[in-house]
C-alpha cells in the first residue's frame, strides 16, 4: 500500500460509496495527490476493461451470417459466467422460478418473448446498464425450451453474444430474426439490425417487433422516412404502451422532416427576392413548388422597395442556402438590389465570423467557385451547399477506383451535411455503394427512403 492515508476514500469516491459532503473533500484532495490519482486511474482502467458491453461484441454482428457461428464460438470464453449457469444440461431447479423483469426496460429494441416482449417504458441506462435477472429463471427458460424469452432475457442482462447464439438455433423463425435485430441494436450495429429486421419482415410482414426494430435501426442510420413508416405502423396497431411510444417517435421524426419543409419556403422567398429585383439568377431547386408565392411576394417586395429589414431568422437557420442565394442574386444586380441584400450579407458574416459575404457585395466574387476541398470548407456550415455535391463527386470517384469503404465514409459525411442543411440526399449513390459492398439491407433502405421521399 502507498503512503497516502486517503487511498481508500479515493477508491470509494469512484465506487459511489461516499456521502456528497465527503465527495467534495475527496475531489479536492485528488487534485493534488498523485498516489490517489493513480488509484483512481486503476479503478477507471479496470472498470473500462471489465465493463460488459465490450466493443468486441460489435464486430461479431457485423460479420456475414455464415461467419457468425465461428466468431461466436471464439467469444464464448468472454461470456464464461453465463455459460456456467446455462450449460446445456442444467441441474433441475427444485422450485419454479418465474422470469421477473424490472419495471423499466434498458434496451430500446423490442423482443418477441411472451414476458420480455411485453411493454415496459424505456429508460436509457445509466450506471448499471443491464437489467438484473435471477439466473435460475434463465436456466428454467432454457430447460423449458422457451427460446424467445431466453433470448430476450439474455439480451437485457447484457449477454449479447450468448443471446445471438440462442436466437440462431431457430433460423427459420421470423421472431428469431427480429430478436437478432434487437441484439444488433443493443451491440451498436444498426446496419446488422436493419438486415435482420428486413429478413424477419420477409418471413412475417405482420411482426410488430420487427417493424419496431427496423424503425430504430433506420432512425440510427438516418433513414427518417423508413423509420417513420415503421413507427407509424406500430402506432396504428394500437398495442398498449408500444403505440404511445411509437407515437412519440413519429412526432419527433415529423419534426425532423418538416424542418426540411421550411427550407422550401425560404427558397421560395429568395426566388421572389430575385424576381422582384429582376435579377437574372436561378436557384437550382427541384423541390421548389411555388405554393407560397403569394404569401411571400408582399414581404419580399417590401424588403426591396420599402427597405423593410429582411427576416434574418431564416438566414441564421439556413446560412448555406443564404450564401448561395447571395452569390447568385449578386450576378448583374443593380445598386438597390445590392443594398437590399446587405443585411443578409452582414448576418452571414456574423455567423461565419468573417467578411466573406460583405466583401462579395463589392467584389461580386462567388466564394463557392473556390470550394474544392471537403477538408478546408466543410467544417463551416455556410459551405454546405457546394460541399454536399462535392462529397457525392468525391465518393463516386472513390467508388470508381474500387475504394468502397472510403466512398462510403465520404458519402456519409455528405449525407450528414445534407441532412443538417436540408439538401436532397443522393440516395442512388448510397444504393450503388451498398450494392458494391454487397449489403442488400442498406440498398433496400436507400430505395425505400427514396420512394418515400418522392410523393
Amino acid at each position, binding site marked *: *500500500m*502507498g503512503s497516502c492515508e486517503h*487511498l*481508500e476514500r479515493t*477508491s*470509494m469516491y*469512484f*465506487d*459511489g*460509496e*461516499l456521502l*456528497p459532503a465527503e*465527495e*467534495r473533500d475527496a*475531489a*479536492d484532495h*485528488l*487534485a*493534488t495527490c498523485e498516489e490517489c490519482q*493513480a*488509484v*483512481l*486511474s*486503476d479503478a*477507471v*482502467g*479496470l*472498470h*473500462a*476493461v*471489465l*465493463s460488459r*458491453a*465490450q*466493443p468486441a461484441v*460489435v464486430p461479431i454482428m457485423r460479420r456475414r451470417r455464415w461467419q457468425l457461428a465461428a466468431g461466436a464460438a471464439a467469444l464464448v*470464453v*468472454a461470456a464464461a*459466467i453465463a455459460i456456467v449457469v446455462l450449460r446445456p444440461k442444467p441441474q433441475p431447479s427444485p422450485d419454479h422460478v418465474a422470469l421477473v423483469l424490472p419495471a423499466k426496460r434498458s434496451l430500446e429494441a423490442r423482443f418477441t418473448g411472451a414476458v420480455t416482449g411485453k411493454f415496459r417504458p424505456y429508460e*436509457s*441506462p*445509466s*450506471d*448499471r*446498464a443491464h437489467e438484473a435477472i435471477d439466473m435460475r429463471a434463465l436456466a428454467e427458460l432454457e430447460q423449458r425450451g422457451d427460446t424467445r424469452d431466453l433470448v430476450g432475457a439474455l439480451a437485457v442482462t447484457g449477454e449479447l453474444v450468448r443471446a445471438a447464439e440462442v436466437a440462431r438455433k431457430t433460423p427459420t423463425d421470423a421472431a428469431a430474426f427480429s430478436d437478432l435485430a434487437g441484439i444488433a441494436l443493443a451491440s*451498436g450495429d*444498426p446496419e446488422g439490425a436493419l438486415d435482420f429486421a428486413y429478413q424477419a419482415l420477409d418471413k412475417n410482414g405482420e411482426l410488430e417487433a420487427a417493424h419496431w426494430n427496423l424503425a430504430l435501426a433506420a432512425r*440510427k442510420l438516418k433513414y427518417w422516412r423508413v423509420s417513420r413508416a415503421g413507427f407509424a405502423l406500430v402506432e396504428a396497431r394500437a398495442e398498449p404502451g408500444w403505440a404511445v411510444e411509437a407515437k412519440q417517435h413519429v412526432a419527433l421524426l415529423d419534426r425532423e422532416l418538416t424542418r426540411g419543409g421550411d427550407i422550401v419556403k425560404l427558397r421560395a422567398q429568395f426566388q421572389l427576392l430575385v424576381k422582384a429585383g429582376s435579377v437574372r439568377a436561378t436557384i437550382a431547386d427541384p423541390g421548389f413548388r411555388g405554393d407560397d408565392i403569394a404569401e411571400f411576394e408582399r414581404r419580399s417586395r417590401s424588403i426591396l422597395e420599402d427597405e423593410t429589414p429582411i427576416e434574418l431568422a431564416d438566414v441564421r437557420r439556413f446560412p448555406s442556402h443564404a450564401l448561395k442565394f447571395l452569390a447568385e442574386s449578386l450576378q448583374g444586380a443593380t445598386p438597390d438590389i445590392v443594398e437590399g441584400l446587405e443585411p443578409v450579407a452582414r448576418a452571414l458574416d456574423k455567423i461565419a465570423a468573417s467578411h466573406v459575404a460583405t466583401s462579395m457585395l463589392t467584389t461580386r466574387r462567388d466564394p463557392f467557385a473556390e470550394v*474544392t*476541398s*471537403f*477538408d*478546408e470548407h*466543410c*467544417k463551416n456550415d455556410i459551405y454546405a451547399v457546394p460541399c454536399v455535391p462535392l462529397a457525392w463527386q468525391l465518393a463516386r470517384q472513390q467508388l470508381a477506383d474500387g475504394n468502397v469503404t*472510403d466512398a462510403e*465514409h*465520404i458519402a456519409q*459525411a455528405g449525407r*450528414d451535411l445534407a441532412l443538417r442543411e436540408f439538401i436532397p440526399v443522393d440516395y442512388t449513390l448510397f444504393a450503388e455503394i451498398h450494392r458494391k459492398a454487397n449489403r442488400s439491407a442498406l440498398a433496400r433502405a436507400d430505395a425505400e427512403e427514396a420512394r418515400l421521399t418522392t410523393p
Partner: protein
Amino acid sequence: MGAQAEVTSLDEVRKRKRIEDLTREHGDYLRALARKLCRSQVDPDDLVQDLFERVLRTEMPDGANERAWISRIMHNLFIDKLRRRAARPEQPAEVEVAAPPREEHVWWEALTEREVRAKLATLPEEQRVTFELFAFHGKSYDEIAAKLKIAKNTVGTRILRARMRLRELFTTERGDG
C-alpha cells in the same frame, strides 16, 4: 481538384466518422463513466464534451483497447479539471485553461477482459471474491458486506487492495515497474 486535396479530404472525413463511431459504440458508457468520475463535483456533460474535443486531436496508440484508451483520456481530463478548480477556487471549473497534455502510458490501456480475469484468479481468495462481487455482479459495498459478513470498511479495503495488486502484477510482468 488535385490528388492532394483528395487526401486531406479523406482524413477529414475519417476523423468525423471516428467521432461518430465512438459515440455510437461508447456513448452510453462514456456518459456513465463521466457521472462516476464527476459525482457531485464537476459537470459530467462538460467532461464528455472535452473528451470528444481531445479525442479528435489525438491518435490512438497501436494495440490499445479503444474503450480503455478513451477512459484514460477522460480520467486525465477529470484530474485537470480538479487541478484547475483547486488552483483558482473562485472560478467555475469549466473555465478553459491550457493544461499540459498528459499522454503517458498507463498499465491497463492494452489489457483485455480475459487477461484481467486470468490475473484475478491469482489474487488472495478474499480479495478476489470481494472484487468479483463488485465488478462482475454489480453489488454495492453494503450488499457485499452483508453477503460476506464483514464490515463495509473491509469491503473498501479489499477492493482497493485488489486493484492495487492487479496494477502491481501487470506492471511487474511487463517489467516497467
